[in-house]
Protein backbone atom coordinates (compact mmCIF):
# COMPACT_ATOMS: atom_id res chain seq x y z
CA UNK A 1 0.00 0.00 0.00
CA UNK A 2 1.57 3.28 -0.96
CA UNK A 3 1.52 6.42 1.15
CA UNK A 4 -0.73 8.31 -1.20
CA UNK A 5 -3.44 5.68 -1.10
CA UNK A 6 -3.16 5.56 2.67
CA UNK A 7 -3.65 9.30 2.76
CA UNK A 8 -6.69 8.76 0.61
CA UNK A 9 -8.02 6.41 3.26
CA UNK A 10 -7.66 8.97 6.05
CA UNK A 11 -9.00 11.65 3.70
CA UNK A 12 -12.13 9.56 3.22
CA UNK A 13 -12.51 9.17 6.96
CA UNK A 14 -12.09 12.92 7.46
CA UNK A 15 -14.50 13.78 4.63
CA UNK A 16 -17.07 11.51 6.23
CA UNK A 17 -16.91 13.64 9.40
CA UNK A 18 -16.94 17.07 7.81
CA UNK A 19 -20.42 18.53 7.51
CA UNK A 20 -21.35 19.90 4.07
CA UNK A 21 -20.37 23.47 3.23
CA UNK A 22 -18.30 23.80 6.43
CA UNK A 23 -15.35 26.17 6.85
CA UNK A 24 -12.21 24.10 6.99
CA UNK A 25 -8.62 25.07 7.80
CA UNK A 26 -5.96 22.50 6.88
CA UNK A 27 -2.66 23.06 8.67
CA UNK A 28 0.36 21.84 6.73
CA UNK A 29 -1.87 21.31 3.72
CA UNK A 30 0.95 20.32 1.33
CA UNK A 31 -0.27 20.38 -2.26
CA UNK A 32 -3.88 20.94 -1.17
CA UNK A 33 -5.10 17.43 -2.11
CA UNK A 34 -7.26 17.10 1.00
CA UNK A 35 -8.79 20.55 0.58
CA UNK A 36 -9.49 19.85 -3.10
CA UNK A 37 -11.10 16.56 -2.07
CA UNK A 38 -13.20 18.23 0.63
CA UNK A 39 -14.26 21.01 -1.73
CA UNK A 40 -15.32 18.47 -4.36
CA UNK A 41 -16.95 15.96 -1.99
CA UNK A 42 -18.33 18.15 0.80
CA UNK A 43 -18.46 21.61 -0.76
CA UNK A 44 -16.18 22.84 2.00
CA UNK A 45 -14.97 26.41 2.09
CA UNK A 46 -11.34 25.57 2.69
CA UNK A 47 -8.07 27.30 3.41
CA UNK A 48 -4.66 25.75 3.83
CA UNK A 49 -1.58 26.83 5.72
CA UNK A 50 1.69 25.70 4.18
CA UNK A 51 5.29 26.72 4.77
CA UNK A 52 6.88 25.26 1.65
CA UNK A 53 7.11 27.18 -1.66
CA UNK A 54 6.41 24.08 -3.75
CA UNK A 55 3.30 23.39 -1.65
CA UNK A 56 2.01 26.90 -2.27
CA UNK A 57 2.56 26.54 -6.01
CA UNK A 58 0.83 23.15 -6.04
CA UNK A 59 -2.14 24.58 -4.13
CA UNK A 60 -2.46 27.38 -6.68
CA UNK A 61 -2.37 24.75 -9.43
CA UNK A 62 -5.06 22.82 -7.56
CA UNK A 63 -7.18 25.94 -7.20
CA UNK A 64 -7.03 25.75 -3.42
CA UNK A 65 -6.92 28.71 -1.04
CA UNK A 66 -3.59 28.73 0.74
CA UNK A 67 -1.67 30.99 3.05
CA UNK A 68 2.09 30.71 3.32
CA UNK A 69 3.17 30.62 6.91
CA UNK A 70 4.74 28.66 9.71
CA UNK A 71 2.10 27.05 11.91
CA UNK A 72 4.68 26.74 14.69
CA UNK A 73 4.50 30.50 15.04
CA UNK A 74 0.83 30.24 15.93
CA UNK A 75 -2.25 31.11 13.96
CA UNK A 76 -2.38 34.80 14.82
CA UNK A 77 -3.73 35.60 11.34
CA UNK A 78 -6.89 33.63 12.10
CA UNK A 79 -9.68 34.91 14.30
CA UNK A 80 -11.10 32.93 17.25
CA UNK A 81 -13.75 30.43 16.21
CA UNK A 82 -13.49 31.37 12.55
CA UNK A 83 -13.52 27.76 11.28
CA UNK A 84 -15.81 24.79 11.81
CA UNK A 85 -12.90 22.36 11.57
CA UNK A 86 -9.15 22.73 11.83
CA UNK A 87 -7.32 19.74 10.38
CA UNK A 88 -3.78 18.61 11.09
CA UNK A 89 -3.18 15.62 8.85
CA UNK A 90 0.03 13.62 9.37
CA UNK A 91 1.75 16.68 10.80
CA UNK A 92 1.28 16.48 14.60
CA UNK A 93 4.34 14.25 14.88
CA UNK A 94 6.46 16.79 13.01
CA UNK A 95 5.69 19.98 14.92
CA UNK A 96 7.96 21.29 17.66
CA UNK A 97 5.26 22.51 19.98
CA UNK A 98 2.45 19.97 19.72
CA UNK A 99 0.68 21.40 22.78
CA UNK A 100 0.57 24.89 21.36
CA UNK A 101 -0.58 23.73 17.93
CA UNK A 102 -3.48 21.74 19.39
CA UNK A 103 -4.42 24.71 21.60
CA UNK A 104 -4.38 27.03 18.58
CA UNK A 105 -6.47 24.56 16.57
CA UNK A 106 -9.19 24.71 19.18
CA UNK A 107 -8.98 28.48 19.47
CA UNK A 108 -9.49 28.99 15.73
CA UNK A 109 -11.84 26.06 15.11
CA UNK A 110 -14.91 24.63 16.79
CA UNK A 111 -13.50 21.16 16.27
CA UNK A 112 -10.08 19.74 15.54
CA UNK A 113 -9.16 16.76 13.40
CA UNK A 114 -5.75 15.10 13.59
CA UNK A 115 -4.25 12.10 11.92
CA UNK A 116 -0.89 10.60 12.85
CA UNK A 117 1.12 7.43 12.34
CA UNK A 118 0.62 5.18 15.36
CA UNK A 119 4.01 4.45 16.88
CA UNK A 120 2.41 1.59 18.80
CA UNK A 121 1.69 -0.35 15.57
CA UNK A 122 3.19 -3.82 16.13
CA UNK A 123 5.84 -3.75 13.35
CA UNK A 124 7.19 -0.56 14.93
CA UNK A 125 7.30 -2.27 18.32
CA UNK A 126 9.05 -5.24 16.74
CA UNK A 127 11.73 -3.10 15.16
CA UNK A 128 12.35 -1.30 18.46
CA UNK A 129 12.54 -4.71 20.20
CA UNK A 130 15.22 -5.63 17.67
CA UNK A 131 17.05 -2.52 18.77
CA UNK A 132 16.32 -0.29 15.77
CA UNK A 133 14.19 2.76 15.11
CA UNK A 134 11.25 1.74 12.92
CA UNK A 135 11.31 2.20 9.15
CA UNK A 136 8.15 1.53 7.19
CA UNK A 137 5.82 2.97 4.54
CA UNK A 138 4.22 5.03 7.29
CA UNK A 139 7.51 6.05 8.92
CA UNK A 140 9.89 6.16 5.96
CA UNK A 141 12.64 8.34 7.47
CA UNK A 142 15.93 7.29 9.05
CA UNK A 143 16.29 8.52 12.64
CA UNK A 144 18.97 11.06 11.71
CA UNK A 145 16.96 12.56 8.88
CA UNK A 146 13.36 12.60 9.99
CA UNK A 147 10.90 15.47 10.36
CA UNK A 148 9.05 13.30 12.91
CA UNK A 149 10.22 14.62 16.26
CA UNK A 150 7.09 13.94 18.33
CA UNK A 151 5.99 10.45 17.48
CA UNK A 152 3.36 8.98 19.78
CA UNK A 153 1.08 6.03 20.24
CA UNK A 154 -2.69 6.00 20.38
CA UNK A 155 -2.50 5.64 24.16
CA UNK A 156 -0.10 8.58 24.40
CA UNK A 157 -2.37 10.83 22.38
CA UNK A 158 -5.45 9.94 24.39
CA UNK A 159 -3.58 10.62 27.63
CA UNK A 160 -2.47 13.94 26.18
CA UNK A 161 -6.09 14.87 25.42
CA UNK A 162 -7.19 13.96 28.94
CA UNK A 163 -4.56 16.17 30.53
CA UNK A 164 -4.91 19.09 28.09
CA UNK A 165 -8.63 19.83 28.17
CA UNK A 166 -9.37 18.11 24.88
CA UNK A 167 -12.51 15.99 24.50
CA UNK A 168 -12.27 13.26 21.85
CA UNK A 169 -15.50 13.02 19.84
CA UNK A 170 -14.62 10.26 17.42
CA UNK A 171 -11.71 8.00 16.55
CA UNK A 172 -10.90 5.82 13.56
CA UNK A 173 -7.84 3.61 13.53
CA UNK A 174 -6.74 2.18 10.22
CA UNK A 175 -4.29 -0.17 8.59
CA UNK A 176 -3.83 -0.44 4.83
CA UNK A 177 -6.80 1.86 4.39
CA UNK A 178 -9.14 -0.40 6.38
CA UNK A 179 -10.64 0.16 9.80
CA UNK A 180 -9.10 -1.66 12.74
CA UNK A 181 -11.35 -2.33 15.73
CA UNK A 182 -9.43 -5.00 17.68
CA UNK A 183 -6.33 -3.92 19.63
CA UNK A 184 -6.05 -0.63 17.73
CA UNK A 185 -2.83 0.50 19.44
CA UNK A 186 -1.15 -2.68 18.25
CA UNK A 187 -2.83 -3.43 14.94
CA UNK A 188 -3.48 0.09 13.63
CA UNK A 189 -0.88 2.05 11.66
CA UNK A 190 -2.80 5.30 11.35
CA UNK A 191 -5.00 7.12 13.87
CA UNK A 192 -7.65 9.69 12.98
CA UNK A 193 -9.33 11.78 15.69
CA UNK A 194 -12.02 14.40 15.88
CA UNK A 195 -12.08 16.48 19.07
CA UNK A 196 -13.25 19.68 20.74
CA UNK A 197 -12.49 21.75 23.85
CA UNK A 198 -13.49 19.88 26.97
Amino acid at each position, binding site marked *: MNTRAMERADFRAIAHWIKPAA*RVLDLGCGDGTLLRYLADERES*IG*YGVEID*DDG*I*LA*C*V*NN*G*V*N*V*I*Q*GDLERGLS*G*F*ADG*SFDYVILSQTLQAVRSSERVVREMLRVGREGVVTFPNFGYWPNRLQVMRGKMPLSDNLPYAWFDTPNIHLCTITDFENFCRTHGVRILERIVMRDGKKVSVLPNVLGSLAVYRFERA
Partner: protein
Amino acid sequence: MYGALNADKSNAVLVCHALNASHHVAGYYADDRQNIGWWDNLIGPGKPLDTNRFCVIGVNNLGGCFGSTGPSSINPATRKPWGADFPVVTVEDWVTTQARLADQLGIQRFAAIIGGSLGAMQALSWTIQFPERIGHAIVIACAPNLSAQNIAFNEVARLAIITDPDFHAGHYYEHGVRPTRGLRVARMVGHITYLSDDEMASKFGRQLRYGKLGYTFGVEFEIESYLRHQAEKFSGYFDANTYLRITKALDYFDPAADHGGNLSLALEPATASFLVISFTTDWRFSPERSREIVKALLDNRRDVAYAEIEAPHGHDAFLLDDPRYHRLIAAYFARIANRVVT
Protein backbone atom coordinates in the same frame (compact mmCIF):
# COMPACT_ATOMS: atom_id res chain seq x y z
CA MET B 1 -2.68 46.85 -25.35
CA TYR B 2 -0.80 43.58 -25.75
CA GLY B 3 -2.47 40.47 -27.15
CA ALA B 4 -5.99 40.31 -28.54
CA LEU B 5 -9.34 40.76 -26.89
CA ASN B 6 -11.49 37.66 -27.34
CA ALA B 7 -15.03 37.73 -28.74
CA ASP B 8 -16.82 38.19 -25.42
CA LYS B 9 -14.06 40.48 -24.09
CA SER B 10 -13.53 38.27 -21.08
CA ASN B 11 -9.75 37.88 -21.30
CA ALA B 12 -8.70 41.43 -20.46
CA VAL B 13 -6.04 41.98 -17.80
CA LEU B 14 -5.33 45.45 -16.50
CA VAL B 15 -1.80 46.27 -15.33
CA CYS B 16 -1.65 49.12 -12.83
CA HIS B 17 1.68 50.86 -12.53
CA ALA B 18 3.60 51.97 -9.50
CA LEU B 19 5.40 55.22 -8.85
CA ASN B 20 7.56 55.90 -11.89
CA ALA B 21 6.21 53.49 -14.51
CA SER B 22 3.79 53.86 -17.37
CA HIS B 23 1.53 52.16 -19.89
CA HIS B 24 4.61 50.65 -21.52
CA VAL B 25 4.56 47.36 -19.61
CA ALA B 26 6.23 45.05 -22.12
CA GLY B 27 8.11 44.84 -25.39
CA TYR B 28 10.21 47.57 -26.97
CA TYR B 29 9.56 50.31 -29.45
CA ALA B 30 10.35 49.67 -33.13
CA ASP B 31 12.49 52.79 -33.28
CA ASP B 32 14.09 52.31 -29.87
CA ARG B 33 14.98 48.72 -29.03
CA GLN B 34 16.63 49.78 -25.78
CA ASN B 35 13.35 51.11 -24.43
CA ILE B 36 11.94 47.95 -22.87
CA GLY B 37 8.64 47.81 -20.96
CA TRP B 38 8.95 47.92 -17.17
CA TRP B 39 7.36 44.52 -16.60
CA ASP B 40 8.70 42.81 -19.72
CA ASN B 41 10.08 39.88 -17.70
CA LEU B 42 6.52 39.01 -16.65
CA ILE B 43 4.35 40.02 -19.58
CA GLY B 44 4.55 38.79 -23.18
CA PRO B 45 3.97 35.79 -25.40
CA GLY B 46 4.65 32.62 -23.39
CA LYS B 47 5.53 34.61 -20.27
CA PRO B 48 3.80 34.22 -16.87
CA LEU B 49 1.16 36.75 -17.94
CA ASP B 50 0.83 35.27 -21.40
CA THR B 51 -0.30 37.70 -24.08
CA ASN B 52 -1.16 34.74 -26.31
CA ARG B 53 -4.05 34.05 -23.96
CA PHE B 54 -4.80 37.39 -22.36
CA CYS B 55 -5.31 40.87 -23.66
CA VAL B 56 -3.05 42.91 -21.39
CA ILE B 57 -3.80 46.59 -21.00
CA GLY B 58 -1.24 49.04 -19.66
CA VAL B 59 -2.41 52.47 -18.57
CA ASN B 60 -0.96 55.83 -17.73
CA ASN B 61 -2.34 57.25 -14.55
CA LEU B 62 -3.90 60.69 -14.53
CA GLY B 63 -1.37 63.25 -13.31
CA GLY B 64 1.50 61.30 -14.83
CA CYS B 65 4.15 62.44 -17.26
CA PHE B 66 4.20 59.68 -19.87
CA GLY B 67 1.10 60.51 -21.88
CA SER B 68 -1.93 61.03 -19.66
CA THR B 69 -2.91 64.55 -18.72
CA GLY B 70 -0.70 65.78 -15.93
CA PRO B 71 0.81 68.91 -14.40
CA SER B 72 3.06 69.43 -17.45
CA SER B 73 0.06 69.34 -19.83
CA ILE B 74 -1.46 72.56 -21.10
CA ASN B 75 -4.38 73.92 -19.11
CA PRO B 76 -6.90 74.88 -21.83
CA ALA B 77 -8.19 77.77 -19.71
CA THR B 78 -4.82 79.50 -19.35
CA ARG B 79 -3.00 77.95 -22.34
CA LYS B 80 -0.11 77.44 -19.98
CA PRO B 81 1.04 74.23 -18.25
CA TRP B 82 -1.16 73.27 -15.28
CA GLY B 83 1.77 73.18 -12.92
CA ALA B 84 0.70 73.65 -9.30
CA ASP B 85 -2.94 74.08 -10.40
CA PHE B 86 -3.21 70.45 -11.44
CA PRO B 87 -5.38 68.80 -8.80
CA VAL B 88 -4.16 66.22 -6.35
CA VAL B 89 -5.40 62.81 -7.49
CA THR B 90 -6.02 59.71 -5.41
CA VAL B 91 -5.78 55.98 -5.98
CA GLU B 92 -9.58 55.94 -6.13
CA ASP B 93 -9.54 58.61 -8.85
CA TRP B 94 -7.14 56.50 -10.91
CA VAL B 95 -9.34 53.45 -10.53
CA THR B 96 -12.36 55.49 -11.63
CA THR B 97 -10.53 56.70 -14.74
CA GLN B 98 -9.41 53.13 -15.50
CA ALA B 99 -13.04 52.01 -15.26
CA ARG B 100 -14.01 54.71 -17.77
CA LEU B 101 -11.27 53.48 -20.08
CA ALA B 102 -12.73 49.96 -19.74
CA ASP B 103 -16.13 51.40 -20.70
CA GLN B 104 -14.58 52.90 -23.82
CA LEU B 105 -13.02 49.55 -24.72
CA GLY B 106 -16.31 47.75 -24.07
CA ILE B 107 -14.77 45.67 -21.28
CA GLN B 108 -17.43 44.97 -18.69
CA ARG B 109 -15.24 42.88 -16.44
CA PHE B 110 -11.51 42.31 -16.20
CA ALA B 111 -10.39 38.69 -15.90
CA ALA B 112 -7.70 40.06 -13.61
CA ILE B 113 -6.09 43.25 -12.44
CA ILE B 114 -2.47 43.09 -11.37
CA GLY B 115 -0.08 45.53 -9.79
CA GLY B 116 2.89 45.85 -7.48
CA SER B 117 3.33 48.43 -4.71
CA LEU B 118 1.22 51.49 -5.61
CA GLY B 119 -0.10 49.45 -8.56
CA ALA B 120 -1.26 46.79 -6.10
CA MET B 121 -3.13 49.45 -4.15
CA GLN B 122 -5.07 50.22 -7.33
CA ALA B 123 -5.89 46.54 -7.85
CA LEU B 124 -7.05 46.36 -4.23
CA SER B 125 -9.14 49.49 -4.65
CA TRP B 126 -10.74 48.05 -7.79
CA THR B 127 -12.11 45.15 -5.74
CA ILE B 128 -13.82 47.64 -3.42
CA GLN B 129 -14.91 50.30 -5.93
CA PHE B 130 -16.02 48.01 -8.77
CA PRO B 131 -16.33 44.52 -7.27
CA GLU B 132 -18.47 43.23 -10.14
CA ARG B 133 -15.92 44.30 -12.74
CA ILE B 134 -12.89 42.32 -11.53
CA GLY B 135 -12.53 38.53 -11.45
CA HIS B 136 -9.10 38.23 -9.87
CA ALA B 137 -6.84 40.68 -8.06
CA ILE B 138 -3.10 40.04 -8.01
CA VAL B 139 -1.79 42.21 -5.21
CA ILE B 140 2.00 42.24 -4.98
CA ALA B 141 4.27 43.98 -2.42
CA CYS B 142 1.31 45.98 -1.16
CA ALA B 143 0.15 47.60 2.07
CA PRO B 144 -3.38 48.55 3.10
CA ASN B 145 -2.06 52.03 3.92
CA LEU B 146 1.24 53.79 4.49
CA SER B 147 2.95 53.62 7.85
CA ALA B 148 4.23 56.76 9.57
CA GLN B 149 7.72 55.79 8.39
CA ASN B 150 6.52 55.46 4.78
CA ILE B 151 4.88 58.90 4.95
CA ALA B 152 8.02 60.34 6.52
CA PHE B 153 10.17 59.21 3.59
CA ASN B 154 7.65 60.69 1.17
CA GLU B 155 7.69 63.97 3.03
CA VAL B 156 11.48 64.19 2.82
CA ALA B 157 11.20 63.58 -0.92
CA ARG B 158 8.53 66.24 -1.35
CA LEU B 159 10.39 68.84 0.69
CA ALA B 160 13.52 68.25 -1.38
CA ILE B 161 11.51 69.18 -4.48
CA ILE B 162 9.51 72.04 -2.99
CA THR B 163 12.56 73.74 -1.50
CA ASP B 164 14.52 73.57 -4.75
CA PRO B 165 14.94 77.22 -5.90
CA ASP B 166 13.92 76.12 -9.38
CA PHE B 167 10.54 74.83 -8.14
CA HIS B 168 8.80 78.24 -8.39
CA ALA B 169 5.79 77.04 -6.40
CA GLY B 170 5.14 74.38 -9.03
CA HIS B 171 5.09 76.75 -12.01
CA TYR B 172 8.66 76.06 -13.10
CA TYR B 173 7.68 75.27 -16.70
CA GLU B 174 6.97 78.96 -17.32
CA HIS B 175 10.44 79.81 -16.06
CA GLY B 176 12.09 77.39 -18.41
CA VAL B 177 13.68 75.46 -15.56
CA ARG B 178 13.06 72.20 -13.66
CA PRO B 179 13.74 71.45 -9.99
CA THR B 180 16.09 68.64 -10.90
CA ARG B 181 18.24 68.97 -7.77
CA GLY B 182 15.23 68.41 -5.54
CA LEU B 183 13.93 65.63 -7.75
CA ARG B 184 17.30 63.89 -7.59
CA VAL B 185 17.34 63.91 -3.80
CA ALA B 186 13.71 62.75 -3.75
CA ARG B 187 14.61 59.83 -6.00
CA MET B 188 17.62 58.92 -3.88
CA VAL B 189 15.53 58.77 -0.72
CA GLY B 190 12.89 56.68 -2.48
CA HIS B 191 15.44 54.38 -4.05
CA ILE B 192 17.01 53.57 -0.68
CA THR B 193 13.63 52.36 0.58
CA TYR B 194 13.22 50.02 -2.41
CA LEU B 195 16.38 48.07 -1.63
CA SER B 196 17.18 45.87 1.32
CA ASP B 197 20.15 46.44 3.59
CA ASP B 198 21.53 43.02 2.60
CA GLU B 199 21.10 43.75 -1.09
CA MET B 200 23.00 47.02 -0.76
CA ALA B 201 25.69 45.31 1.29
CA SER B 202 26.20 42.56 -1.26
CA LYS B 203 25.99 44.86 -4.28
CA PHE B 204 28.09 47.74 -2.97
CA GLY B 205 29.30 47.11 0.54
CA ARG B 206 31.87 49.74 1.42
CA GLN B 207 33.52 49.56 -1.98
CA LEU B 208 35.23 52.75 -3.03
CA ARG B 209 34.63 54.34 -6.40
CA TYR B 210 38.23 55.42 -6.95
CA GLY B 211 40.13 52.92 -4.85
CA LYS B 212 41.00 55.27 -2.00
CA LEU B 213 39.36 57.84 0.22
CA GLY B 214 39.67 61.43 -0.95
CA TYR B 215 38.36 63.18 2.18
CA THR B 216 36.03 65.27 0.04
CA PHE B 217 32.27 65.62 -0.35
CA GLY B 218 32.33 64.19 -3.84
CA VAL B 219 31.52 60.60 -4.70
CA GLU B 220 33.70 58.26 -2.67
CA PHE B 221 31.73 55.07 -2.09
CA GLU B 222 30.19 52.98 -4.86
CA ILE B 223 26.75 53.31 -3.29
CA GLU B 224 27.01 57.09 -3.60
CA SER B 225 27.94 56.81 -7.24
CA TYR B 226 25.07 54.40 -7.88
CA LEU B 227 22.46 56.57 -6.16
CA ARG B 228 23.65 59.71 -7.92
CA HIS B 229 23.60 57.96 -11.28
CA GLN B 230 20.06 56.61 -10.72
CA ALA B 231 18.89 60.03 -9.52
CA GLU B 232 20.47 61.76 -12.50
CA LYS B 233 18.76 59.39 -14.91
CA PHE B 234 15.40 59.75 -13.17
CA SER B 235 15.45 63.53 -12.95
CA GLY B 236 16.08 63.65 -16.69
CA TYR B 237 12.75 62.09 -17.62
CA PHE B 238 10.40 62.49 -14.66
CA ASP B 239 8.27 65.48 -13.77
CA ALA B 240 8.60 66.87 -10.24
CA ASN B 241 4.94 67.88 -9.97
CA THR B 242 3.94 64.35 -10.90
CA TYR B 243 6.29 62.98 -8.26
CA LEU B 244 4.70 65.21 -5.61
CA ARG B 245 1.20 64.06 -6.54
CA ILE B 246 2.03 60.37 -6.70
CA THR B 247 3.61 60.42 -3.25
CA LYS B 248 0.49 62.18 -1.97
CA ALA B 249 -1.75 59.53 -3.53
CA LEU B 250 0.29 56.94 -1.65
CA ASP B 251 -0.02 58.81 1.64
CA TYR B 252 -3.80 59.22 1.28
CA PHE B 253 -4.56 55.62 0.37
CA ASP B 254 -6.36 54.01 3.30
CA PRO B 255 -9.52 52.12 2.37
CA ALA B 256 -10.10 51.18 6.01
CA ALA B 257 -10.27 54.83 7.09
CA ASP B 258 -13.95 55.11 6.17
CA HIS B 259 -14.68 52.06 8.32
CA GLY B 260 -13.10 53.13 11.57
CA GLY B 261 -9.80 51.59 10.54
CA ASN B 262 -11.41 48.18 10.04
CA LEU B 263 -9.94 46.71 6.85
CA SER B 264 -12.24 43.69 7.02
CA LEU B 265 -15.25 45.97 6.77
CA ALA B 266 -13.59 47.92 3.97
CA LEU B 267 -13.07 44.74 1.97
CA GLU B 268 -16.58 43.42 2.58
CA PRO B 269 -17.79 44.41 -0.92
CA ALA B 270 -14.82 42.72 -2.61
CA THR B 271 -15.85 39.51 -4.37
CA ALA B 272 -12.75 38.91 -6.49
CA SER B 273 -10.39 36.01 -5.94
CA PHE B 274 -7.04 37.20 -4.64
CA LEU B 275 -3.42 36.29 -5.08
CA VAL B 276 -1.40 38.24 -2.53
CA ILE B 277 2.39 38.14 -2.69
CA SER B 278 4.99 39.71 -0.42
CA PHE B 279 8.78 39.54 -0.26
CA THR B 280 10.64 38.65 2.92
CA THR B 281 13.19 41.48 2.72
CA ASP B 282 10.72 44.20 1.71
CA TRP B 283 10.86 46.63 4.64
CA ARG B 284 8.93 49.36 2.82
CA PHE B 285 5.78 47.22 2.53
CA SER B 286 6.70 44.28 4.71
CA PRO B 287 5.02 40.84 4.65
CA GLU B 288 3.12 41.82 7.82
CA ARG B 289 1.29 44.50 5.81
CA SER B 290 0.23 41.92 3.21
CA ARG B 291 -0.91 39.64 6.02
CA GLU B 292 -3.28 42.39 7.14
CA ILE B 293 -4.90 42.23 3.72
CA VAL B 294 -5.05 38.43 3.86
CA LYS B 295 -6.64 38.52 7.32
CA ALA B 296 -9.31 40.93 6.09
CA LEU B 297 -10.04 38.63 3.14
CA LEU B 298 -10.28 35.62 5.45
CA ASP B 299 -12.70 37.51 7.68
CA ASN B 300 -14.87 37.95 4.58
CA ARG B 301 -14.37 34.33 3.47
CA ARG B 302 -12.89 35.32 0.16
CA ASP B 303 -10.77 33.16 -2.10
CA VAL B 304 -7.14 33.96 -1.43
CA ALA B 305 -3.73 32.50 -2.04
CA TYR B 306 -0.91 34.19 -0.14
CA ALA B 307 2.78 33.65 -0.81
CA GLU B 308 5.75 35.09 1.01
CA ILE B 309 8.64 34.92 -1.42
CA GLU B 310 12.10 34.62 0.09
CA ALA B 311 13.99 37.18 -1.97
CA PRO B 312 16.98 39.31 -1.02
CA HIS B 313 16.06 42.36 -3.10
CA GLY B 314 13.67 44.28 -0.85
CA HIS B 315 10.64 46.09 -2.24
CA ASP B 316 12.04 46.11 -5.79
CA ALA B 317 11.78 42.31 -5.88
CA PHE B 318 8.36 42.62 -7.46
CA LEU B 319 9.99 43.94 -10.63
CA LEU B 320 12.66 41.27 -10.80
CA ASP B 321 12.74 37.87 -12.39
CA ASP B 322 12.57 35.42 -9.49
CA PRO B 323 11.65 31.88 -10.59
CA ARG B 324 9.46 31.06 -7.54
CA TYR B 325 7.61 34.34 -7.89
CA HIS B 326 7.09 34.03 -11.62
CA ARG B 327 6.10 30.36 -11.46
CA LEU B 328 3.37 31.27 -9.02
CA ILE B 329 2.00 34.05 -11.20
CA ALA B 330 2.16 31.77 -14.25
CA ALA B 331 0.20 29.08 -12.37
CA TYR B 332 -2.40 31.57 -11.19
CA PHE B 333 -2.93 33.01 -14.67
CA ALA B 334 -3.07 29.52 -16.18
CA ARG B 335 -6.02 28.78 -13.91
CA ILE B 336 -7.69 32.06 -14.82
CA ALA B 337 -7.13 31.28 -18.53
CA ASN B 338 -8.82 27.91 -18.13
CA ARG B 339 -11.87 29.60 -16.64
CA VAL B 340 -12.00 32.33 -19.26
CA VAL B 341 -11.69 29.87 -22.19
CA THR B 342 -10.36 31.87 -25.11
